C-alpha cells in the first residue's frame, strides 16, 4: 500500500511539468524558478539540520566497539585499530571505511531457525546483498552527480569530471555512449525497491517515506536516460541554461525538449525533500557518536558541557550516622566514634 501511494505520488509529480511546460508553457518557472527555489530549500535545510546536530552536545563518549581495545600490552593483546580506534587517525580510518565502503553493513548476517535431529539450531550466515545493492546504488548516484558538474563548470575540468566520464563510458556501448552508472543506478534502485517489496520483514517496516525517495530517484534516472538516449535533447541548449543558472543570468532556450523539464522538476523535488527526510543519513553518518569517536574515555578526560557538579554521592558521613552502631559492633572502623554509640549510650 505504502509503495503504491509513493508510486502514484511520483506519477503526479511527473505530470506537473508535462502539463506545465507542454501545455501551459511555463518554461521559466520550471527551468529556473523552481530549481532555484528547490536548491535554496536544499541548501538551507541541509545546513540548518547539520548545524542543529553539530550544536547538540555529545555529553558522553559512546563508541560501539567492534574488536579488542588498546591493552596495557599491545603486543600480547593486539588492538583492533579500525573497529576499536583509540586515536584520531584510527577513528578517521574507521570513518573512511564506513563512509566509502559501508563497512558495518558488510558485516551483515541473516539469522535462521532449523529443527535438526540434534535439536533446534539457530544459524547465522553472512548476508552481503544489502551491502551490494546499497553500494551499487550509492556509487552510481554519486558518480552521476559528479558527471553533471560538466553542465555547471566552464571549462570542464578533467579531474574528476572528464576522467569519470571516460571510465564510466568505457564500454562504449551505443551512441551516445552508455554510462555504466546509469544502468547501475536503475539496477540499484530496483534491487533496493524489490527488497523492500519482497522481504516481508523489511516491507513491514517501510513507510511511504521509504518508498517515495526510491521511486523518485528511479523516475529521475529514467527521465535522464530518456533524455539522453531517446529524446536526444539539445545538450548545447541545456548547458546554456544550466550555465545561466550557475551564473545568475538565466536564459531559457526554446529548443529544449519537455523531458528535460520533467527531469529538472523531479530533481528539484528531490532537493527540496532531502533535508526533511531520512536522506539526511548522508551527512548524518559523519556525525554518528557511536562511530566517530575514539574509544579512549578511560585514558583521557572528556568534558560533558552540562555535567551537573551539584550531583553528589550519598555522603559517607550520613551513611556512618545511619549505620555507625552496627558498624562499630561488627568492628568496622569509624571516622567519628560518636556514631558507634547506641542512642541510649549517647544520651547518657
Amino acid at each position, binding site marked *: 500500500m505504502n509503495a503504491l*501511494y509513493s508510486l502514484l505520488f511520483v506519477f503526479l509529480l511527473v505530470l506537473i511539468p508535462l502539463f506545465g511546460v507542454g501545455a501551459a508553457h511555463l518554461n521559466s518557472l520550471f527551468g529556473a524558478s523552481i530549481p532555484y527555489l528547490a536548491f535554496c530549500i536544499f541548501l538551507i535545510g541541509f545546513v540548518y539540520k547539520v548545524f542543529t*546536530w553539530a550544536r*547538540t552536545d*555529545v555529553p*558522553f*563518549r559512546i563508541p560501539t*566497539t567492534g*574488536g*579488542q*581495545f588498546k*591493552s*596495557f600490552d599491545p603486543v*600480547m*593483546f593486539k588492538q583492533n585499530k579500525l573497529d*576499536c580506534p583509540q586515536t584520531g587517525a584510527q577513528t578517521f580510518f574507521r570513518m573512511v571505511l564506513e563512509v566509502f565502503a*559501508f563497512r*558495518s553493513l558488510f*558485516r551483515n*548476517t*541473516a539469522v535462521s*531457525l532449523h*529443527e535438526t535431529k540434534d535439536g*533446534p539450531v*539457530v544459524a*547465522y550466515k553472512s548476508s552481503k546483498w544489502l551491502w551490494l545493492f*546499497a553500494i551499487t546504488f550509492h556509487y552510481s548516484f554519486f558518480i552521476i552527480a559528479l558527471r553533471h558538474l560538466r553542465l555547471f563548470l566552464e571549462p570542464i575540468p578533467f579531474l574528476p569530471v572528464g576522467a569519470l566520464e571516460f571510465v564510466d563510458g568505457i564500454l562504449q556501448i551505443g551512441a551516445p555512449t552508455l554510462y555504466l552508472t546509469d544502468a547501475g543506478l536503475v539496477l540499484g534502485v530496483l534491487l533496493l525497491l524489490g527488497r523492500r517489496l519482497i522481504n516481508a*520483514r*523489511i516491507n*513491514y*517496516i517501510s*513507510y*511511504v*517515506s*521509504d518508498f517515495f525517495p526510491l521511486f523518485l530517484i528511479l523516475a529521475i534516472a529514467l527521465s535522464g536516460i530518456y533524455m539522453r538516449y531517446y529524446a536526444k535533447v539539445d545538450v548545447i541548449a541545456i548547458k546554456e541554461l544550466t550555465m545561466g543558472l550557475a551564473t545568475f543570468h538565466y536564459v531559457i532556450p526554446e529548443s529544449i525538449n519537455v523531458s528535460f523539464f520533467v527531469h529538472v522538476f523531479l530533481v528539484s523535488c528531490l532537493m527540496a525533500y532531502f533535508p526533511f527526510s*531520512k536522506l539526511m*543519513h548522508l551527512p548524518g*553518518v559523519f*556525525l*554518528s*557518536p557511536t*562511530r566517530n569517536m575514539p*574509544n579512549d*574515555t578511560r*585514558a583521557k*578526560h*572528556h*568534558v*560533558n558541557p552540562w*555535567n551537573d*557538579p551539584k*550531583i*553528589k*554521592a*550519598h555522603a*559517607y558521613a550520613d*551513611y556512618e550516622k*545511619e549505620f555507625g552502631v552496627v*558498624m562499630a559492633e*561488627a568492628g*568496622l572502623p569509624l571516622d567519628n566514634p560518636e556514631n558507634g554509640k547506641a542512642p541510649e549510650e549517647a544520651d547518657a
Partner: protein
Amino acid sequence: MSDIPKADELFKSIDYAPPATGWMETPVDFSPGNWCYPAKPEKIAYMESKMPGLWGEARQWVPGEADWHLPANWKETVVNGFRERLKKFRSLQLFMDICVRCGACADKCHYFIGSGDPKNMPVLRAELMRSVYRGEFTLAGKILSKLTGSRVMEENVLKEWFIYFYQCTQCRRCSLFCPYGIDTAEMTMMARELMHLVGLNTNWIMEPVSNCNITGNHLGIQPHAFKDIVDFMVDDIEEVTGRRVKAPLNEKGHEILFITPSGDVFADPGIYTFMGYLLLFDYLDLDYTMSTYASEGGNFGSFTNNEVMKKLNAKMYAEANRLGCKWILGGECGHMWRVVHQYMDTMNGDNQGSQMTTPKSPITGTVFDTAAATKMLHITEFTADLIKNGKLNLDPSRNDHLRVTFHDSCNPARGMGLLDEPRYVIKNVCNNFFEMPPQTTREQTFCCAGGSGLNTDEIMEIRLRGGLPRGNALRYVRDKHGVNTMACICAIDRATLIPLADYWAPGVTITGTHELVANALVLEEGEVRKMDMRQEYLPGFEDEEDDWTPPNMEA
C-alpha cells in the same frame, strides 16, 4: 515458571512472519509475564526525596490494568522531556533523523530472534520513539501523519514504550550492525528517562537504585551483614585451601580500593568468584581494602537516568578519597564497566582526589596508561599482567574436570573492547577451553537477556526467549566438546545464565573467571587441593566425601 513451555515447544512457536496489521495498529499484549512489576511507592518516594523531579509521583499501579494512574500532565512532561533530551544528546537527535529502515539491525536482537515479535526488531523498537519524534517535533511528520510513520504521544503509545523499552537489555548488538551505528540502547536509555519522569518504572531497577544509595549495594545489605558474609567466605576459603586470608574492609591508608558488583558477595555462584579475588589478593599480599559504603560496582542508576548513574558512580571516587586510595581495582561486572569506561571520568572525573594516580601494579610495576583518566583497572587486566610476568604459580590441571567456554558480556565487549584479557586468563588456568561459534562471541556476542535490570523472574519466558541465541551456541559446544562450564566476567550473567543454561543447554554450570583462577592458584610449594572453591571434591578425591556420617547415624 510452571506455565513456561518446554524448550522445543518454545522454539517451535517462534514465527518470523510479520502480522497482518501494521505495527501501529497491532495491539500490545499486557498480560502478566510481559512486564516487570512496578516499583514499590516507598522506593520512589525515597529517590524523589534525594533527587527531586525525576520520578513522577509515587503510586501503586499495575501494567495489566487499564488505568495506570498517570499524572494529569503526563503528556506535557514526556513531550517536554523529550524535547529537552533532543537538545542535550546529539546521539538521540541524530538517531531520530537518520535511520533509513534498511533492516540490517532487525534480526540482530536476541529478543527478536527468540520471539519473532516485530517490535523487538531494534528498528521498530526505535520507531516507537521516532514516530512520536516525527509527530510532535517535525513539520513533515505533522503534515503527513501515519503514512510517514508519525503519530502523536498518546496513552497507548506510552504504554507500548513501557513494554518494549523494558524488553531491551541495552546490549548494543544492533548498533554494531547498523551502517550508521544507530544505537537502540541509547534510545532505550532516553525512553526510560522519560518514562521515569511520569512514574513508569520497575521495582527490579528502583529497589536496587534506592538500596545502592542508602546502603551502598543493591540488595540493601547493611555493613555489619556485609562483613559477616565476607567473614563467612574467609572461612570457606580456609576450608578449601587451609589459608586464612585477609579481607580488609573500610580501612584507610591502603593503595588500592577494590570494588566489585555486590552480586559477587551475596549470590551463588558469584561468591566463588569473590572468594577468588580474596585468595588472589592475599596470595599477592596486595595492599588493598574493600568498602561497605562503596560496595556496589554495578550501577543500577544507568538503567534509570544519567543523573542517578552519576550519583551512584560518584561513590567510588568519594570512597577512594576518604580512604586515601591511589587507584581503584574493579571486579567482574558488565554494565559497571560500561559505566566506568564510557561515563565515569566524564561525569565524576572532577571528584578524583589529588592522591589518585594512574593504576600501577605493585606486583609487576606495570603502569596502566589505558586507565590514566579513570584511575580504574579491570581485574582481568590486572591478572593477565600478573600471569604474563610469571607472578602466579598456577596449576591448571586442578580445573581439568571443567570443560570451559567463555561468554562475552555485552558491555565489556561492545562498550569497551575487552575481549582478549579474560580469555588469556582462562586459558592459563584451564586446560580445556572451547570457543562458541564466532557469530555469537566477541563483539558479536549475544546477551544473557537479563541485563539492564531485566533479570527478574516475572518475565522469565521473555528472558528465556531472549536467551535462545546464547543458549543455542552453548548447547552446540556442550554437544561438540563436552563443555560443562561457562565462564563470564559479569555478575548479572552469573545470575541470569543459570536458568538460561538449565533451559537451553542443561548440564552446563556458570562460573566467574576468578573462581577458576582461585582453583588453579598454587599457594605454596607442594600444596594439594582436594576441593574446588565450591567445596566440591576434585576428581580423585571424591571418596573422601564418604567420611561424612549423617547426624542421625552418629554413634
